[in-house]
């Protein structure tokens, strides 16, 4: 997570502690009751041999579920697929979202900007499942996308994207792109016009202005966006399942199976916590690098 410290000092440090507590208590109290305590229960479950709920057997504790990657070597391939999905989706979202956010923040003003901004969020006020199903209409053989291509280029063959890796990536990028646009946008609007003019006056060309001024300043937005995208994509199961066909087996779908049809909560929970740990390690590794970069910027 990006370090958000501005280092401002409190007017009344003696009361600062209580104030911080009062600000944090509602959010973390709420999360404690609805997420952390339930997840703690899940953490306990992940060390059980069988699902504690309704099992006739006595509770048996085991580490076996955390050895899943050893016991079930095929999971390594599944994890690799998930990682690839995460990287592709996050990368594409960054590549598309950042320029869009810059265009949104710098090239438009006032109401136009608000309207455009709203337009990017609007699609997300529809149900995700409906959107994914709509993608199947578009991507399937002889679907709307094929028909559109044939209008332009009648002789073209079928793209037949449905039930493939690209189809899953398209669905995921579509689902998560607004997060990137949003977080980048919030970073970009903070950049003063003067800063860019100053860089220009120092002789920086457009690409240089981008890499030396805009990019470092957008970094917090990019990082927040990447977290908001990469993390849930690793665990996503709806898009792979519906758009991926045979190849749509990811950590998300494996975990989902454990919680639905296979009724092996301990394994599903253990896989989730393993995944969470991996994600945390990745971000911890990156945050060191990022902090240095941010300090320079």
């Amino acid at each position: 997570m990006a370090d958000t410290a501005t280092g401002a000092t409190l007017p009344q440090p003696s009361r600062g502690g209580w104030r911080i507590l009062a600000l944090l208590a509602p959010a973390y109290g709420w999360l404690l009751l609805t997420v952390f305590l339930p997840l703690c229960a899940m953490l306990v479950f992940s060390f059980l041999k069988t699902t504690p709920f309704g099992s006739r057997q006595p509770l048996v504790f085991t580490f076996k579920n955390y050895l899943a990657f050893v016991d079930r070597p095929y999971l390594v391939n599944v994890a690799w697929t998930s990682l690839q999905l995460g990287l592709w989706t996050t990368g594409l979202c960054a590549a598309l979202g950042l320029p869009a956010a810059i265009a949104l923040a710098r090239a438009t003003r006032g109401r136009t900007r608000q309207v455009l901004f709203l337009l990017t969020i609007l699609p997300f006020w529809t149900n995700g499942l409906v959107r994914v199903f709509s993608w199947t209409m578009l991507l399937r053989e002889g679907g709307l996308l094929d028909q559109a291509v044939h209008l332009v280029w009648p002789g073209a063959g079928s793209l037949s994207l449905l039930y493939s890796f690209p189809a899953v990536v398209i669905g995921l990028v579509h689902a998560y792109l607004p997060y990137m646009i949003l977080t980048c946008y919030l970073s970009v609007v903070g950049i003063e016009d003067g800063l860019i003019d100053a860089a220009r006056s120092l002789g920086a060309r457009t690409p240089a202005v981008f890499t030396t001024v805009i990019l470092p300043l957008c970094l917090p937005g990019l990082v927040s966006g990447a977290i908001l995208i990469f993390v849930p994509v690793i665990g996503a199961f709806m898009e792979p399942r519906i758009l991926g066909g045979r190849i749509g087996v990811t950590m998300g779908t494996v975990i989902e199976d454990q919680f639905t049809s296979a009724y092996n909560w301990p394994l599903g929970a253990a896989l989730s916590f393993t995944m969470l740990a991996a994600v945390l390690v990745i971000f911890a590794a990156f945050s060191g690098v990022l902090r240095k970069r941010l300090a320079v910027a």
Partner: protein
Amino acid sequence: MVVRLDRRQFTQTMGAGLAATAWGLGPVRAADKTITVLNWQGYGTDEKFAVKKFQEMTGYEVKHDYYNAEPEMLTKLRTNPGAYDVAILNTARDSQAQAENLIDAIDLTKVPNAAGLADTFKTHPNITIDGKTYGVPWVWGMNALAVRRDKVTGVDSYNVFTDPAYVGRCALFDDAVTGIAMAALLTGQNINNPADMKKIGDTLKTFKKNVKLLWSSEDEWNKAFGGGAFDISVYWSGAVARSQKLHNLAVDFLIPKEGAIGWLDNLCLPATSTKKEQGLAFINYMIDPKFYVDWVTGSGAPASANSAAMNELPATDLNRQIHKPEYLSKIQFMGTLPDDRRQAYNDLWEEVKAYYAHS
């Protein structure tokens, strides 16, 4: 005055307060004149005509809660004591539900329509535990092959999933029990207790080139088949009738020489129900031949466990064509699975799916 609220009251009050500030709740459950049925969605009990008819008959409104997987149904029964009055279970799950005291034994003499039940079902080992009956057999069906009419001919074995002629043209049901059972049939094993799981896994893995997708719902199947995504698939017998009748799909059902996987669903009484009498009344109505005929003609249904009901259908009815009595001999029914075996099925199926996915 000091008002003390415990946590439950507090959160409920808070929730209620929040809700009241806005413009009202969804339908609040009327205290008395309703019964709640736990079932798959769109599976007979929630047919509009049936709900209406039952209310006319008894004055009780029928509400529904749905599940999307069998373990989820059990979880819902466990975590909502008192919420359900009738539950529809695959009979393979009866012993598990009974062991957890989730369902009550049923006295079939209090269900008049049970007289017409076929004997094979009435005393089926799945529903009879310690000499007591824990469910009223309702409908049964088969999982076998559905093929695109005119395009696929001469198929008579599950080996079609390895036939080079159908590379990328096949679909499987994303269900561990069905998957393992099919391979068990193909390798000549007992579907409920296969001796050689490794052979089953290896057999399933040979399907890889032909399998284009794994479907998990009838709707998904219809849309994909309708969109031409595949030509051959494992499918439910009753669903084939619906696909033909409701969606005009050119699909035929066939039972390969290895046989079909049979299943039997039954109507159960949740142990915590407070309206068992009305529950039994609803169960009785569900196996009423008249209801069955209306269901079949209205939307399409699996085969009824009630011989009387089956006989009511015209001989030309699709459902009678598909569920021919002689097939019963070629069917192995899904039976009760011990926990560890069920888990072995699920683990193997997960491995097979990962194998299919990895390029």
